[in-house]
């Protein structure tokens, strides 16, 4: 024990007073994200890291593996490393508040990407509202479904719920119900758990469809589950284009490549889109501006309004969806 103390003391003396100072035009940015398990996050991760690298900045990546506490530790590690700025995709809104506070009290500018802190007054906050976006997408399919159905018919709606430990999943679920509840008496809702796991979703959806063979409408809390849905629907004759017999009104959320293709093909009717590139760009610009301006605690809210890409607005808004940009670039 004594030897540890002395080593530590010695190194403290040696390093005392040295504080890393880096010029802003080649900044070191800490990019901490919660996980990389769906296309959305992977694309966002890629956009941010490559843009920064292209501009000559150093990026320190930190993956928290969906552990808010680990993320806090990683942010602290970044601060200790003397980074110039931090971009964080937090695990959830509450931990985001703590993380922002941590960074700001160390005078390191911080931007929060995609998941808003519960208190948006601190830090650069780039937000999209999961609930509203989900509601927009579901609104579209609800209206379409009701328009086609006989007036007295009760429709069967399925929602594939994400991991209940993830607030994004809960927000999307709330958005779904916000839309459905506008016509409460017309829908019979079946909830299917997915835990953000394709295998679980497969098993549960198959059971749900067996139990309720007549499906009129489906909302998946993430686009990454569309291949799973296809596996269940196709053999049952439910995977059809609009106009074909058995077409199920379907909507998702994220706006990824697969969803874009499926909307173009007509199988899927709508998906809620978070404007990934806008969000990435906005956070980068804001954080670099703060570093350049020597601002230690920049506070700003950048709203990503998001939107729903539907069969109706496909022609005009296609290239506003990041998945379609990716798809076109391929």
């Amino acid at each position: 024990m004594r030897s540890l103390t002395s080593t530590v003391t010695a190194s403290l003396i040696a390093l005392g007073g040295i504080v890393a100072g880096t010029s802003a035009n080649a900044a070191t940015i800490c990019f901490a994200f919660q996980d990389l398990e769906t296309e959305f996050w992977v694309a966002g991760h890629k956009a941010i890291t490559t843009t920064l690298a292209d501009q000559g900045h150093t990026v320190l990546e930190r993956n928290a593996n969906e552990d808010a506490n680990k993320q806090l530790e990683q942010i602290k590690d970044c601060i200790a490393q003397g980074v110039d700025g931090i971009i964080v995709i937090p695990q959830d809104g509450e931990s985001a508040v703590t993380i922002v506070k941590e960074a700001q009290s160390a005078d390191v500018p911080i931007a929060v990407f995609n998941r808003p802190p519960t208190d948006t007054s601190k830090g650069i906050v780039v937000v999209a509202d999961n609930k509203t976006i989900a509601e927009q997408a579901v609104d579209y399919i609800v209206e379409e479904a009701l328009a086609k159905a006989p007036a007295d018919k009760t429709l069967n709606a399925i929602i594939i719920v994400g991991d209940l430990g993830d607030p994004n999943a809960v927000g999307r679920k709330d958005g779904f119900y916000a839309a459905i509840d506008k016509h409460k008496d017309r829908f019979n809702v079946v909830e299917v758990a997915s835990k953000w796991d394709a295998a679980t979703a497969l098993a549960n959806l198959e059971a749900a469809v067996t139990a309720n063979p007549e499906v009129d409408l489906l909302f998946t809390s993430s686009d990454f589950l569309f291949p799973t849905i296809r596996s269940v629907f196709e053999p049952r004759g439910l995977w059809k284009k609009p106009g074909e017999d058995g077409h199920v009104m379907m909507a998702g959320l994220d706006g990824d490549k697969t969803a874009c293709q499926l909307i173009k093909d007509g199988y899927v009717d709508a998906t809620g889109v978070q404007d990934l590139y806008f969000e990435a760009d906005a956070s980068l610009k804001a954080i670099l501006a703060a570093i350049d301006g020597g601002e230690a605690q920049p506070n700003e809210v950048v709203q990503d309004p998001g939107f729903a890409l539907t069969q109706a607005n496909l022609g005009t808004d296609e290239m506003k969806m990041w998945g379609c940009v990716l798809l076109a670039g391929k």
Partner: protein
Amino acid sequence: MPSAASSPSRKWASRLFLSDYFVLYLSLAYVAILAPFLPTLLNPANISNVLSNLWPLLVVATGQTFILATAGIDLSQGAVIAVTSVIGAMLIAVTGNAAVLSNAPIWGVFIGEQGGILAGSIGGIAVAIAIMMLVAILIGLLNGVSVAVFGMPAFMVTLVTMIVIGAVAIYLSLSENISNLPDAFVTLGKGDLVSVYFGAQDESKIPRKIIYSFVTYPMVIAVAVAVAAHYLLNRTVFGRQVVAVGSNKRNAEVSGIPVRRVIVAVFVISAVCAAIGSILYSARLEAGRPTLGAGTFLLDVIGATVIGGTSLFGGKAKIIWTFFGVLFFVLLSNTLNLMNLSAFQVDMVKGAVILAAALLDVLRTRLTRELT
């Protein structure tokens, strides 16, 4: 002693491998090797940070040490952290957010618009903490009785409690985090007692960035828990009984050790330590979180304890080992961060380190066998 042990290199090896401080030496060597490549490693800010990451993990690993000492395993610690975090927060939150919580089963019962039912007083916080401990004790009892009395394997029992208690935690608040915790509680997770400034004395204004906290409330709490645990495990009658059960259960039975009671007690201790860890984690994140301690957290806990030298087969456990093990583990993840590995490689490095530590343990065991 057999003659084999007498050669100088063997003696050196035995002294190194069998020392209580082996993992400390290992950590120091690790730091010494990496320091030239990672200049920030010995930066005061980084050291302060390593320390702040160390304390909560130390508390939880301390509890696990007792379990491993009896040759058991407790997979439910993470779930205990989650459920006590939610329960504590719902009782003391200053205000409740109806928008997110109004559907939760606890809404209107334990928490409302005006906050938790114990909100608004220091005494309330104390009561809430007592309730968190009580919940932990009950879960520990459930685990312990299942293992000791019904003879169920600890692995399966705590796996099931992990699933069930974890689900209960999420159910209580319907996935939502409960924020707006009182400042007095938050201080427990991040408050400073002593901070240090390194720099020229004539600076007119000290930028906050270079004030480093070293003595914090989590440190005090964790050190208190660890010291108490150290005495309990290594100095008390109970500690001797724990080790006796882990060394040779049948011998312990014949020797009049209350084996069942000891097993139940270690599961309770483990759960209580998890609950104390829950206070530290909830306070530093300023929210009651149903997903605390999920994922790979538990593997960190067991990994750190085992790297410290505590045997999975029981009978060999010291809190000081666990302290060094946790130190090594925290240093490891700190340096993995500082190394700027791509996010895609971290898992592999981590797996390799666990394996290396396990191999080291096998080597140690073999050496011990050879040298004595």
